[in-house]
């Protein structure tokens, strides 16, 4: 999209090409405007808060990843040798809690969303900068409580906190972990609130709803889910806490409660939470695919509406988690049918990304490698989700490794791959430096191979009947489990590489130009890194999103000739 951005008022300099290292001292930007620790910790600049979120979330990935390594090491042999059942239960619970609540849910909105939402719509900051900072500190409080719960012995209920185990029987730190989840929910709510108001109220002149980049549509739809769903999980975990302390009789049949009610309330939030994780990833995908195919996205309007459709339909499908929990068969049928409907907008998106790439100038940079990996992995994850939505098949594979493989394909193969793609794509914008391109491509390849090696065998294991959440298994399943553990080692290496070369590039990377990818969008028209208020003058948007030249690559080449 094009807009009019005024030339810099002070110290004008030509747009820097990507040159090696020690170039001209960059003009004042959000990073070098102030260096004191207070200027970071008390900053209300959305970009600085995004960077603080990035550092915190990277730390949580390492914590959650360490738990994953322990799980896979234990499962390398059939006997329970490294971990015994109690410790194993705690490790998989903490892996789930940390990854879901402190990485997958906040990952893209809090880091990329915080950084990009105001810039992409032509605003100086989010609508409520102080509330944005507050959301970060609430997030830190949630992390602190979780880490205290880990230090005091951990939780062993599974990340789903199912009753009656969590409310009546578990002796681990359930209450503390539940409070941590409760607190963290408010951080999400405040971020969602901020995004909704910002998109409604602060769009630049000319930035109509249907000129918004699809990343913004995705953040907006995600924020709606957060606002409508998160209060329910907060109330649910609060009720579990009250049940443990005062036996009020919500979930415990002894006092007139019903354990299945917990599952209804939990999944009312937690199934839409799956879309809180994947929708922002889909937003990132739309940006990557258009930028590196140099083509307008195929079917902009239907992409925007399918984003909203996923957000809304996602609220009506939660019962597919309860097929074997004693839910009525009729309710099961209803939930099963609606589950199939979610596949429609999701498939539209996949087909439209592929159609966008078709006859485009596909440029295989690191972000595009991640985007293509996403396409394959998300498709496998999504299609196996349709298997699981069918009641008969679900009864066969319920609570087996088939389910574990399915949601890792969607969450890790989908969200995490898009997260890394997005981080590489906007890294030059965020920090003004290029990352080493070849290293990036190598890490994307290692992640893709490692991921499939880790999780594909789990589909087979699950189909053969290996249940999830056990630390031992019959010997005939060892080969597939060893393959999975070997893949996890490779996958871990793939994720560690960017964590090394990205910080390295901050000092040694080539200086990035304003628009190293030749991409459309307001963020590529301002400095890299941006100034504190992003734009020197309010931009006026005059073009559609992704206004790349029309026609196929061959038509355009023919025109040039």
């Amino acid at each position: 999209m094009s807009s009019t951005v005024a030339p810099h008022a002070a110290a004008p300099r030509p747009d820097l090409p990507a040159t090696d290292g020690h170039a001209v001292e960059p003009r004042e930007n959000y990073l070098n405007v102030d260096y004191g620790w207070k200027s970071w910790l008390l900053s209300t600049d959305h970009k600085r808060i995004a960077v603080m979120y990035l550092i915190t979330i990277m730390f949580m990935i390492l914590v959650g990843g360490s738990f994953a390594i322990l799980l896979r090491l234990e499962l390398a042999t059939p006997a329970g040798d490294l971990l015994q059942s109690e410790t194993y239960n705690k490790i998989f619970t903490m892996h789930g809690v940390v990854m879901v609540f402190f990485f997958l849910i906040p990952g893209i909105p809090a880091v990329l969303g915080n950084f990009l939402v105001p810039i992409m719509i032509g605003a100086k900051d989010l609508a409520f900068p102080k509330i944005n900072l507050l959301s970060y500190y609430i997030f830190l409080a949630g992390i602190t409580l979780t880490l205290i719960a880990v230090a005091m012995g951990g939780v062993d209920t599974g990340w789903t906190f199912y009753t009656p185990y969590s409310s009546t029987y578990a002796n681990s730190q359930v209450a503390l972990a539940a409070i941590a989840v409760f607190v963290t929910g408010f951080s999400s709510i405040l971020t969602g609130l901020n995004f909704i108001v910002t998109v409604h109220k602060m769009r630049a002149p000319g930035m109509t709803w249907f000129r918004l980049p699809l990343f913004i549509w995705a953040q907006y739809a995600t924020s709606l889910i957060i606002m409508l769903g998160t209060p329910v999980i907060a109330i649910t975990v609060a009720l579990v806490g009250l049940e443990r302390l005062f036996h009020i009789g919500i979930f415990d049949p002894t006092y007139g409660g019903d354990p299945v009610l917990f599952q209804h309330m939990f999944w009312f939030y937690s199934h839409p939470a799956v879309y809180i994780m994947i929708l922002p990833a889909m937003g990132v995908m739309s940006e990557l695919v258009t930028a590196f195919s140099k083509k307008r996205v195929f079917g902009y309007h239907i992409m925007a509406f399918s984003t909203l459709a996923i957000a809304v339909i996602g609220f009506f499908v939660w019962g597919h988690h309860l097929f074997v929990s004693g839910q009525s068969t009729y309710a099961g049928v209803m939930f099963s049918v609606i589950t199939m409907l979610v596949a429609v907008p999701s498939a539209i998106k996949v087909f439209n990304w592929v159609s966008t790439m078709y006859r485009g100038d596909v440029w295989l940079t690191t972000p595009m490698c991640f985007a293509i990996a996403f396409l394959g992995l998300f498709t496998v994850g999504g299609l196996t989700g349709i298997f699981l939505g069918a009641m008969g098949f679900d009864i066969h594979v319920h609570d087996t490794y088939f389910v574990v493989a399915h949601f890792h394909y969607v969450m890790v193969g989908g969200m995490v791959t898009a997260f890394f793609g997005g981080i590489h794509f906007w890294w030059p914008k965020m920090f003004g430096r290029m990352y080493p391109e070849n290293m990036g491509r190598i890490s994307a390849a290692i992640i893709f191979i490692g991921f499939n090696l880790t999780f594909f065998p789990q589909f087979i294991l699950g189909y053969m009947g290996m249940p999830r959440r056990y630390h031992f298994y019959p010997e005939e399943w060892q080969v597939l489990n060893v393959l999975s553990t070997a893949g996890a080692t490779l996958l871990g290496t793939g994720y560690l590489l960017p964590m090394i070369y990205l910080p390295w590039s901050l000092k040694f990377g080539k200086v990035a130009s304003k628009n190293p990818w030749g991409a459309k969008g307001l963020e590529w028209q301002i400095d890299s890194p941006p100034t504190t208020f992003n734009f020197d003058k309010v931009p006026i948007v005059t073009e559609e999103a992704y206004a790349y030249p029309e026609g196929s690559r061959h038509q355009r080449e023919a025109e040039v000739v």
Partner: protein
Amino acid sequence: MSGNQPHIAPIKLYLGVFATLIAGTWLTYWVALQDFGWLNTPLALLIAVVKATVVVLYFMHVRWQSKMTMVFAAAGFVWLLILFAFTLQDYFTRSWLPIYG
């Protein structure tokens, strides 16, 4: 009220809201001590709904906000209905089929 200007409500209004809430709480307490048969729960819920409405419309100023704000405020309640309706469709249909095995 529309636009960006905040609505400034007189302090009397807040006192009125406070009085309504206190009165509602006492009423809930009194109702809980009486036996109205099957009306016990509906009556308690009715008082709670009236209190919530007063809070949303007056204390939270939704009454003077733009249509968009009203839509968002209403959406929360619509979603609460979805939670109730789809949970109850499980409870109400559980006895339709016998449990085999």
